[in-house]
C-alpha cells in the first residue's frame, strides 16, 4: 500500500537516508527501529513530505505523493509525534477537530466524530471535551494526540516515537490500546521507535535502520532467527533472544490437544508469560482457556522448548 522507492535524503555532504526501498502492507503495523541518527524519523517524515526527498519516490495506494500539494497530502495521512504537539490554546475537542475542519467537514459530522474518538480513547466527552491540554496528564495528552491523528479517518497513520514520553506502565497500556485501535479501524500504521521491545510488540513487520540504510526488513521472528547482519543480531539482543521469540507466540497458537492438571492460562498470553507461570508454580504444563471460557488444550514445557529456537 505504501511503497518507498530508493528514497534518499542528503543535507549537504551528509546522507541521512540512503536509497531505502520497502513496501508497507495495507492494514498492518510496520515499525522502523533504529538508534538516534539512524535516519528513521527522516524516512517517516518523507512519507508525508514534511521532509522532501533528495531522490527516490513514495507511492501511496500506487499514486505518487508528489502529485498533489504537500498540505493536501498530509490531511489524508494521520501524524502523531512524541511530545504530542497539541495546540495549547485549543480545547481537547478543538484539537481533535483540526483536520476535519481543514477538510471542510460540517459541524455536526465533526462533533459526532470527536465524541466517538473520545469514547474509543476512554476519555469521557463530558469531562474532557472542553479541557485544555495543560489540564491533562501525560497519558491523556498522548491519547488526544493519537485521536487527533485519526480524526479524519486516514488510511495511513504515521507515528514518531508516540510513546517515548510515557512512563513504562502507561506505555504498555498505550501500546495495547494502539493494537486494539488498529484492529478496530484497520489503519495502516508506520511507527518509528528506538525501542526494540516496542518494535517486536507492535510490529507485524519491522525494519531495522542504521546510518540511513535499512539493514533488514521482515517479521519479528525472522529478525530473531535469521538476522541478516551482525548489527541486527546485536540490536535484537542475543542474550534473551529465546525469550523474545517466545513472546511472539500466543498460548492459543501453541496449544496442543490434551488435558493438564496445571494452572489455567489465557489464550492471549504469550509463551513467555506461560513459561514464567510454569516456572513460578514449579509445574510442567498448563491448560489454555479462551476468552469465552472454553478449553483450547494444553501447553507443556516440551512444547514451549520447541517454540523457543529457530525451526
Amino acid at each position, binding site marked *: 500500500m505504501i511503497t518507498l522507492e530508493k528514497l534518499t535524503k542528503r543535507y549537504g555532504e551528509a546522507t541521512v537516508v540512503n536509497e531505502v526501498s520497502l513496501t508497507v502492507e495495507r492494514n498492518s503495523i510496520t515499525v522502523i527501529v533504529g538508534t538516534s541518527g539512524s535516519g528513521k524519523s527522516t524516512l517517516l517524515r518523507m512519507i508525508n513530505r514534511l521532509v522532501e526527498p533528495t531522490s527516490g519516490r513514495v507511492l501511496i495506494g500506487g499514486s505518487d505523493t508528489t502529485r498533489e500539494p504537500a*498540505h493536501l*497530502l*498530509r490531511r489524508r495521512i494521520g501524524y502523531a509525534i*512524541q511530545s504530542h*504537539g497539541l*495546540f495549547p490554546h485549543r480545547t481537547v475537542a478543538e484539537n481533535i477537530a483540526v*483536520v476535519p475542519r481543514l477538510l471542510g467537514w460540517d459541524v455536526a459530522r465533526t462533533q459526532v466524530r470527536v465524541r466517538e474518538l473520545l469514547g474509543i480513547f476512554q476519555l469521557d466527552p463530558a469531562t474532557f471535551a472542553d479541557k485544555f491540554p495543560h489540564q491533562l496528564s501525560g497519558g491523556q495528552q498522548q491519547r488526544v494526540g493519537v485521536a487527533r491523528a485519526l480524526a479524519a479517518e486516514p488510511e495511513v497513520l504515521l507515528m514518531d516515537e508516540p510513546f517515548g514520553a510515557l512512563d513504562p506502565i502507561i506505555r504498555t497500556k498505550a501500546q495495547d490500546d494502539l493494537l486494539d485501535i488498529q484492529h478496530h479501524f484497520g489503519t495502516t500504521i508506520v511507527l518509528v521507535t528506538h525501542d526494540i521491545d516496542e518494535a517486536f510488540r507492535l510490529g507485524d513487520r519491522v525494519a531495522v535502520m542504521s546510518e540511513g540504510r535499512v539493514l533488514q526488513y521482515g517479521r519479528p521472528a525472522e529478525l530473531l532467527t535469521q538476522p541478516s547482519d551482525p548489527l541486527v543480531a546485536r540490536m535484537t539482543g542475543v542474550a534473551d533472544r529465546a525469550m523474545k521469540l517466545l513472546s511472539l507466540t500466543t498460548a492459543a497458537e501453541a496449544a496442543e490437544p490434551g488435558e493438564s492438571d496445571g494452572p489455567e492460562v489465557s489464550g492471549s498470553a504469550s509463551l513467555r508469560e506461560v513459561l514464567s507461570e510454569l516456572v513460578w508454580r514449579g509445574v510442567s504444563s498448563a491448560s489454555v482457556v479462551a476468552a469465552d471460557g472454553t478449553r483450547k488444550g494444553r501447553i507443556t514445557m516440551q512444547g514451549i522448548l520447541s517454540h523457543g529456537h529457530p525451526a
Partner: protein
Amino acid sequence: MMARPTRVDRLGTLLALVVAAALALLPFVVFKTNRIVPGEPKALAAVLPGWATLGLYACLSLVAAVAVCLSSARIRFGASLCGIVASAAALAAAADRLTPLGNKIVRVAPGAGFWVLLIGLGLMTTDAVARMRLAPAARVVMLACFLAAAYLVLAHGAFDNLSIMREYAVNAGRFTNEVRRHVALAVGSLGAAVIVALPLGILCHRQPKLRPGMLGVLNVIQTIPSIALFGILMVPLGALALAVPLAARLGVSGIGAAPAAVALFLYSLLPIVANTVAGLRRVSPATVEAARGMGMTNLQVLTAIELVLALPVILTGIRIVLVQNIGLTTIAALIGGGGLGAFVFQGIGQTATDLVLLGAIPTVTLAFCAAVMLDALVEVLDRARA
C-alpha cells in the same frame, strides 16, 4: 470576606509614616498673588476652619490605621478611596477660601504636602486593587468609573479655583485639540510601527541569520536621544518637502508633526520586533511540527497557531511602545509637533508651573489608562495557557 487583624502591614506603615511626615512638614497649598510670582506656602490649619482640618486629619488617621493593621483588600481599597475624596474636597475648599470672590488673578496650587498625600493614597489604592485580583474586565470597568467620576467632578466646577483649572479655563479651546494631537501622534505612530514591525519580527524568526543585524540596527536607533533624532530627521524631511510638492501638501516638513511621527515610529520598532521574535520562539516546535504534519498551510500555521500563541508577548511589546510613545510625544512639541507637550514647554518658558502640570497630568493619565487596558488584554489572552 471578614477583615481579620493580622501582622502590621509593611507597605501601609511606610506609606502612613511618609504621608504623616509630609503633612507635618510640607505645605498643603501654595498661594500666589498672581501667576508667576513665587508662592506663599500655607498649612491646612491656616486656611480651613478648625473643625474641617480636624475632620480631614481624623479621616486620614482612620485610613492610616486601616493601611497599617487590616489585610482585607476591599477595606483597604475603600479606605484609600475615602482618603482621596476627603483630601480632594479639602483642597477644593482651601482653593475656594483663599480666592476672593470673582478674583481671577490669584493662584492657589496644591503644595508638596498634598502631592505626597495623593501619591501615598494612590499607591495604597493600586496596591489594594492588585491584592483584590480583579478580573481583567473588572479592572477596565473600574478605570472607566474613575475617569467618569473625575470628569463629572471637574465638569461640575468643584476645582475651578485651583490653579491648574485656571490654566485650563484659559486654554480650554486648545486643550482638546492638543489631547487629540497627542493621542493621534502616539497611537498613529504605533499603528504604523505594528504594520512594519510584525512582518520584520516574523522574518527575523524565520531567518535567524537576519536577527542580530536587524535587532542591532533597531537598538542603535533606540539609543539616539529623542531630541537628537528630531534634529536628524529635520534635514531629510525638509528636503523631501522641498523636492516633492505632494509631500509638502500632505503636511510633511522639517518641523512639525511629520518628524515627530517618524521618530516615534522608529522608536516603536525595536520593542515590537523583539517581542514578536520572542513570542514566536516561545511557541513549542512540536506544536508547529504537528500543525504542519496535520496539513495546515504555511499561512495557516503562522496565523492560527504561531501568531495566536505569540500574541500575549507581542501585545506586551505594544503596551511598552504605547506607554513610551505617550511619554515621548510630549517632546514633539519642541519641534512644533503639538500635543500636550506644548503646555509643558510653554509653562517652562513662562516659569508657570501650573501650565506645566496642565500638560503633564493628562499625559500621565493617558499613559496609565493605556497600561491598564493593555495589561487587561494581555491577561485575557494569556489565560487559556497557564
